[in-house]
């Protein structure tokens, strides 16, 4: 009896398809360079001395976008384009401790008012501006005053309980948006 039951389980495993469906908020997957809009390719190829270039397609509730991720002078950059190849923003991963003390204090004061306890897990500088200004920024690491700066932070924060958030701070230190990060199910890593 047990053997038949085990065999049935085995067949079920081998022959069953998805029974449950669920929409996903965000999906990022690799794309070939040939699938990238020409304008986006042209912008990235105008940059010099970049390494480890990879292209991604991101699908989220706010729409589709194309992202180029690469390294330049050991810094990690992510350049986001719309599906036509128009540049949307440039993000650079930084060590939060390397940010000016004044800026750190502005952000810390705001986080203090939101959470009883917090720690910053990851920090990215987000730049918005003209194509030429953003290109110069990447090339020279010098920011033109016309470029808009924001801070995208991954924060572990405690309100009633500990959660992880993605928070976008304006340069003024005000919060532009705050989104809780929902962790993917990890049943296959637990059992």
């Amino acid at each position, binding site marked *: 009896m047990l053997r038949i039951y085990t065999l049935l389980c085995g067949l079920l495993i081998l022959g069953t398809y998805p029974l449950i469906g669920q929409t996903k908020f965000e999906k990022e997957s690799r794309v070939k360079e040939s699938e990238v809009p020409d304008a986006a390719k042209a912008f990235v190829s105008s940059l010099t001395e970049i390494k480890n270039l990879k292209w991604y397609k991101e699908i989220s509730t706010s729409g589709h976008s194309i992202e180029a991720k690469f390294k330049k002078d050991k810094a990690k950059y992510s350049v986001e384009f719309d599906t036509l190849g128009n540049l949307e923003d440039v993000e650079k991963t930084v060590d939060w401790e390397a940010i000016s003390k004044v800026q750190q204090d502005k952000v810390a004061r705001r986080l203090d008012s939101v959470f009883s306890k917090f720690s910053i897990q990851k920090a990215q500088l987000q730049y918005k501006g003209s194509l030429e200004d953003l290109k110069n920024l990447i090339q020279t690491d010098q920011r033109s005053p016309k470029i808009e700066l924001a801070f995208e932070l991954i924060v572990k924060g405690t309100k009633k309980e500990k959660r992880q958030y993605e928070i976008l701070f304006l340069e003024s230190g005000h919060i532009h948006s705050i989104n809780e990060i929902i962790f993917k199910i990890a*049943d296959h890593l637990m059992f």
Partner: protein
Amino acid sequence: MAFFLFLFTHTVSSQTSYAWGLLPAINLNKGFDNKWNLNFTIESRQFVQKGIFNQTANSGYTYELTDFSTVLSKKIGLQSFLGGGYTLRIRDQKTQHRSIQQFTVVSKLNHLRLSHRFTSDQTFFKDDKPEFRVRYRIGSEIPLNGQSADVDEFYLKLSNELLNSWQDQDYDLENRLAAVLGYKFSDTNKLEVGLDYRIDGFIDGFAAHVFWVRVNWYVKI
């Protein structure tokens, strides 16, 4: 990897046993209040062949056992879980009972997810001394497309587990190395197929190598 090659080549002798077989598992999970999770697993072991290295195989297909396990876990941190459970093992028409305690931490690194699982269990037999085990497993999910394993994407799952076991006066150490290819049909439905290599008895010179073909189906209900 070099360590496992060393272990394999240095434990294979004319008296070393091997076996290979199938290890299918159905894994059902039910979440409650975002804090609690109830896991129910059915796993069976079926040997396709057993034998001694460098000799003719001495057995064909044999059904070995079936485990019915349930573990209730509580999320105690951002991505850490404390759980306790019970396994009913049916083998040769006899039953064994196992109590389980486990603590798991999952973390997200740049391109992969990493898990550390610490488990202790106690197995009780009708006509033998109880067996006590302390286990540690490190596992990782590596997406094969993009920076995280999303729906309709493949991932690679690698894990290694060390199991210390004590029964009466005997001690043994077992190592389990697994590599499976997974596919995510949805956020709540995954299928994995791969290999699981286990070795035990190498401490006292009687190593037993077992190669399992794993098929895991995970469903969140």
